[in-house]
């Protein structure tokens, strides 16, 4: 024992603790927190690879399965490199600006083994955040699936993450203006789900409907695969939401529990609606409701209580269900795998509800309590400003990026013949299955 205390590393730590003005407690590495965020990082990456990839892959037709897997995989690759080069710096750099983090941490400049972000290694914090940057553009794959050119997809995803995701992450989590205003977004209702949802809506509108949309049966080719992916998403979401506490503490525990309850409630709600309307609950309905419940609780997972989570999941299930039907059947926008109605709408509903259910004065439905200088009205106002500003910024920038990408890659869409042949052959000269 004595020898271990005298080891230089422990000795230095002990000395630091003894010097009250030299370092605050936050500058000391916390092993428990570090372990949990390392774990959460793996969980959130697992959500994309292979969770989301399988979920989406099963929902498209046989001839496009590989293209969707490739799109999710390629986005993970490109965004990771982008994160190293500028992403981390733009999102979490130390700039004084309220709109971006600057370029001083480009190429992880100054991030070394001993660098800390609060009480966890900066590398761990940065890796954890990177997995969020990966899944957000990957969610948009659902909007353009089965008809996008691979080159356009890759260029769009890179530019979109650079111009939309990184700055918005800074606004909300990196010390930017929305965070300063007091926006409640614990794990990414605005940063992840509203950006991805609005991006998907604009993309689906610009690229147009798939051949045979609403006239020919365009059905999921392998719901077993989608179920597998959905299960991974549910489990991975524990890292997504409970990891966003950035600590192994009570906040993480509560976030995990409310996340779980909302997922279950969302799934049950969707099943119930189908059961009442069509006489049978469907498997796809159950997993879609689960995703809706998860997306909706995401911004609210650090502020609502367990009973509040039930309301969040219920609202997410109902609103996302009707949004899905309305967008496809009535407005006829072919957001192919329903990214906007599930993630975008879920993110909006959850961000709004977070401003209400955070209140400590709702009896059994109470949350963790409003910030000191906030009333429910002022908090909801901030939430609305957050939703509208992120949605407007994302919508406009997505449209501009798509125009640029279209010009550079001479059109973002494959030809009609290529679409009929399927993207696996068209884009990759491969087939997903040789059965």
């Amino acid at each position: 024992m004595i020898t271990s205390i005298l080891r230089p590393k422990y000795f230095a730590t002990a000395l630091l603790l003894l010097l009250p003005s030299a370092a605050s407690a936050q500058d000391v590495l916390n092993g428990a927190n570090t372990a949990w965020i390392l774990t959460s990082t793996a969980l959130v990456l697992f959500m994309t690879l292979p969770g989301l990839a399988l979920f989406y892959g099963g929902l498209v037709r046989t001839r496009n399965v590989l293209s969707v897997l490739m799109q999710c995989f390629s986005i993970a690759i490109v965004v990771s490199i982008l994160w190293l080069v500028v992403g981390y710096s733009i999102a979490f750099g130390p700039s004084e600006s309220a709109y971006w983090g600057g370029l001083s941490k480009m190429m992880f400049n100054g991030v070394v083994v001993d660098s800390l972000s609060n009480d966890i290694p900066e590398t761990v914090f940065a890796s954890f955040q990177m997995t969020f940057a990966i899944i957000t553009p990957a969610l948009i794959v659902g909007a353009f699936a089965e008809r996008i050119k691979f080159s356009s997809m890759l260029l769009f995803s890179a530019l979109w993450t650079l111009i939309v995701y990184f700055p918005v992450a800074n606004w909300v989590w990196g010390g930017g203006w929305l965070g300063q205003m007091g926006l409640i977004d614990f794990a990414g209702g605005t940063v992840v789900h509203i950006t991805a949802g609005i991006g998907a809506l604009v993309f689906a509108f610009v690229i147009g409907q798939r051949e045979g949309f609403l006239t020919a049966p365009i059905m999921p080719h392998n719901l077993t695969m989608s179920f597998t992916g959905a299960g991974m998403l549910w489990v991975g979401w524990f890292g997504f939401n409970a990891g966003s506490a950035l600590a192994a503490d009570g906040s993480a525990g509560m976030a995990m529990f409310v996340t779980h309850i909302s997922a279950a409630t969302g799934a049950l709600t969707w099943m119930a609606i189908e059961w009442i309307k069509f006489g049978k609950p469907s498997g796809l309905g159950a997993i879609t409701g689960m995703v809706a419940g998860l997306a909706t609780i995401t911004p609210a997972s650090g502020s609502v209580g367990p009973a509040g989570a039930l309301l969040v999941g219920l609202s997410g299930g109902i609103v996302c269900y009707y949004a899905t039907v309305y967008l496809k059947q009535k407005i006829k926008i072919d957001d192919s795998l329903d990214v906007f109605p599930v993630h975008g709408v879920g993110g909006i509903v959850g961000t709004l509800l977070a401003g209400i259910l955070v209140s400590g004065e709702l009896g059994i439905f109470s949350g963790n309590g409003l910030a000191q200088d906030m009333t429910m009205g002022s908090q909801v106002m901030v939430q609305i400003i957050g939703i509208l500003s992120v949605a407007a910024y994302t919508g406009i920038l997505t449209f501009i990026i798509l125009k640029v990408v279209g010009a550079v890659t001479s059109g973002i869409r494959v030809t009609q013949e290529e679409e009929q042949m399927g993207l696996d052959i068209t884009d990759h000269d491969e087939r997903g299955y040789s059965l």
Partner: protein
Amino acid sequence: MKLITAIIKPFKADDVREALSELGVSGMTLTEVKGFGRQKGHTELYRGAEYVIDFLPKVKLEIAVSDELSDQVIEAICTAANSGQIGDGKIFVSNLEQTIRIRTGETGNDAL
């Protein structure tokens, strides 16, 4: 010789195989096929979007038999594949000119 082609419900395939084995039929070919007749299709729902599926999964059995056995085979299939519901399938019977066992070169009834 006759070639008997039976389109039946997939879950009846085992019953039919057993019934035919009892008659002494020593071989048959099974193919998974899709089709529709009077049963028409059914509807499937995906996230609220309703699709009419015209072609339903069926099993196609092809059995080559001697003329003497063919009536019994047809009767056995009719009994075994009958569920009383619409969509039980059909049996097509055609004359078979020749049968050859590849390994031995035997022909006709000997090759069945």
